[in-house]
C-alpha cells in the first residue's frame, strides 16, 4: 500500500536533489563504498546548512554492548547495502539499532546509526545497475542514499484528495460478474521545500561483500 507514491517521491528526489559521491571507502570505484567519513561529511554539510534533525538522541545506559545515539538525520538506503553497514560495525560512531541503549524509538526498517545519521532501509531504494566502472574494467551498482533533514521535502495531497482504496464487487465490475475491481487512486505532488537540507549520497558496495 502506498508503494507507488513512494516510488514517485523516490524518483523525484533522485532527479532534483544534489549529489555527493562517497569517497571514504577503498574499493576503487567512483563513488566508493561507504566509509564512516562519508556519513560525517554529509551530516556536517546538513548541519552547516542549518537543517533540522529528525530524531533526538538516546541517552546511554549501563547495559553491555550498547551505546548512546546522537541527534540524527535520516538516511534512506537500499536493503542491498545492509551487509556493507554490518561491515562498518566496530568503527567509532557505528551502532546497529539493537545496540542502542534503548531502541524504543527505532523504526522497524531501521538498520542503525552512524554518527549523526540513522539509516532506514528499503528494497525499493534507488539503484543504478552497473553504472560505475573501475580502472580494471569491473562494474558496480551505484546506490542513491538520501540523507535529509526535517524541513527538506513535503508531500501534498492535491485539493484534499487523499488516497482512496476502491473496491467494486463483481456485479459492478462487469456485465458477466466475472471480475472484481481493486484499485488505489491518489492525486499528489512532491516538493523539496528546502534544497540545502537534502543530499543524495552515492556509493557502490564493498567489493569483498558484493554478491
Amino acid at each position, binding site marked *: 500500500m502506498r508503494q507507488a507514491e513512494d516510488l514517485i517521491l523516490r*524518483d523525484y528526489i533522485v532527479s*532534483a536533489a544534489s*549529489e555527493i*559521491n562517497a569517497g571514504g571507502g577503498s574499493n576503487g*570505484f567512483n563513488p566508493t563504498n561507504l566509509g564512516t567519513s562519508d556519513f560525517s561529511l554529509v551530516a556536517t554539510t546538513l548541519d552547516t*546548512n542549518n537543517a533540522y534533525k529528525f530524531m533526538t538522541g538516546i541517552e546511554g545506559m549501563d547495559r553491555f554492548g550498547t551505546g548512546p545515539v546522537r541527534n540524527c538525520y535520516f538516511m534512506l538506503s537500499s536493503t542491498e547495502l545492509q551487509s556493507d553497514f554490518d561491515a562498518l560495525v566496530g568503527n567509532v560512531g557505528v551502532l546497529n539499532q539493537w545496540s542502542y541503549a534503548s531502541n524504543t524509538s527505532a523504526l522497524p526498517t531501521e538498520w542503525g546509526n552512524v554518527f549523526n545519521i540513522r539509516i532506514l532501509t528499503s528494497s525499493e531504494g534507488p539503484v543504478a545497475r552497473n553504472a560505475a*566502472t573501475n580502472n580494471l*574494467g569491473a562494474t558496480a551498482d551505484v546506490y542513491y542514499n538520501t540523507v535529509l533533514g526535517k524541513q527538506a521535502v513535503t508531500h501534498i495531497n492535491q485539493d484534499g484528495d487523499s488516497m482512496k482504496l476502491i473496491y467494486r464487487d463483481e456485479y459492478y465490475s*462487469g456485465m458477466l460478474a466475472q471480475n472484481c475491481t481493486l484499485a488505489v487512486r491518489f492525486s499528489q505532488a512532491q516538493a523539496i521545500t528546502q*534544497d540545502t537540507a537534502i543530499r543524495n549520497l552515492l556509493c557502490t558496495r564493498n567489493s569483498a561483500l558484493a554478491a
Partner: protein
Amino acid sequence: MAEYSRLAQGSFISTGQAKVIQIPFKPEYIEMVNYTATFEAPTSQAVVSAKWFAAMGQGFAVEQVYDATPDLVVDAVIANGFSTFSAGQLLQYGPTLVVTVVSKAAAAAVTTSTAHGLSSGDVVIFQGLFETSTTGMPQINGIPFTVTVTGATTFTIPWNTNQSNYTAISVATTGAPTVKKVLYPYLYFPGQTFISNITLGTTTTIDTTDAHNFVVGQEVAFRIPSQWGTVQLNSLPNTLVPGSPVYGYVIAVTDYNTVVVNIDSSAYTTFNSNQTVASVPGLSYPQIVAVGDVNTGGVQISSGSQLYPPPYYVPIGTTRVNTINGPAIQGAYVNNTAQGFIIGIGTGVNQTSSVLVGTEGDVIHWRAQLNDLLLP
C-alpha cells in the same frame, strides 16, 4: 473478454523521422495506415500499412509495401519498426556500447565500435574511460552528457577534454571504455544538472552537461566541490544574512545547456574542470539545482498562441518537446512520466528502401490496443 482492454487511435503528419506516440498504456497491438500512400499512384518502396503484435518483439513490423514493379507485397521489418515504452522509472539504461576513441577536444569526440543508434539530444553516461590504469578520462565517468551525433559511430559531448589531466582514449590497455544511453533522462524536471563550465563576470554563465530545462526567472542554487574552484557560488554560508542560502535567478536561457544567472562572480575563483585521474575515487561533481516551485508566474499569452500550452523540455539546441501534462506554470516542477509506442524508420527485409513511418508530409493514421486476455 474486452472489459479491461484499452484502445486508442490518432493520426499525424510524418516528418520522415521516428514518431513517438504517447498514450495512457503500453500497447500489445499496433496498426497504421499511410493514408497518403493509399490514394497516390503506386510508388516503389511506399509503405501502405503495417501491423505489430507484442509477440513479434520490439522493433519488428509486418508491412504492405509496393515493390519495384510496383505491386503491393508483404514484407517484414526487423529493426526500428514498432516499439513500446514505459517511461516511469529513472535509472534505466540502454545497451552497453564499446567506446574505441575519445578525443582531446573542447567538445570531446567519441567513436563507438558499432553503430550507436543515438540521436542528437539523447543522453548517455560513460564508464571505464581509462587508457591505462592511471591515465585516461575517468573524470567524466558517470556524468550524464547530451550527445550531438556526427555519424553512425561518432558523436560529440559538451565537455572540454583538451586539458593536461586528460589522456585521449585510443587503445585502452586497461579498463573497458563503454557508453550507454540514459533511457528517460527528463522524467522529472527542472532538477539537478552537472556543470561543465562557468564563465565569470557581472553575470554568470553556466554550461551544463545535459539539458537544464530552466526558464527565465528560475531560482537556482549551486553545489561546487572545492576542487572545482568557484566555491563562492555555493548556497551557504551567506555572509550578508547568516544562515540564509544564497540563490540566483536565471536571467537568460541561451540554449539547452547554457543559462545566464544574475550573480556577479567577477571576483570569484575560476572554474576548474581539469581534475586529476588520481582524484577520481570519491570525486563529486559541480551541480546547479532548481529551487522554488513557482518561478515565472505563468505563460505569456499573445495573439494566436495556445492558451494553456503544456510544459516542455529542451533536449538539445532550442528545440521544445511538449510533455503530455498541462496546463502548467513555466518553471514549475513537471512530472514527465509517459507510456506509448514509437513508429520507427525501419526498412523492409526485401524492400530495403522502404521506410515504415513514411516520408515527410505523409498522413499516418494509427490504432493501438492493450488486450485484457493475451495467450499464451
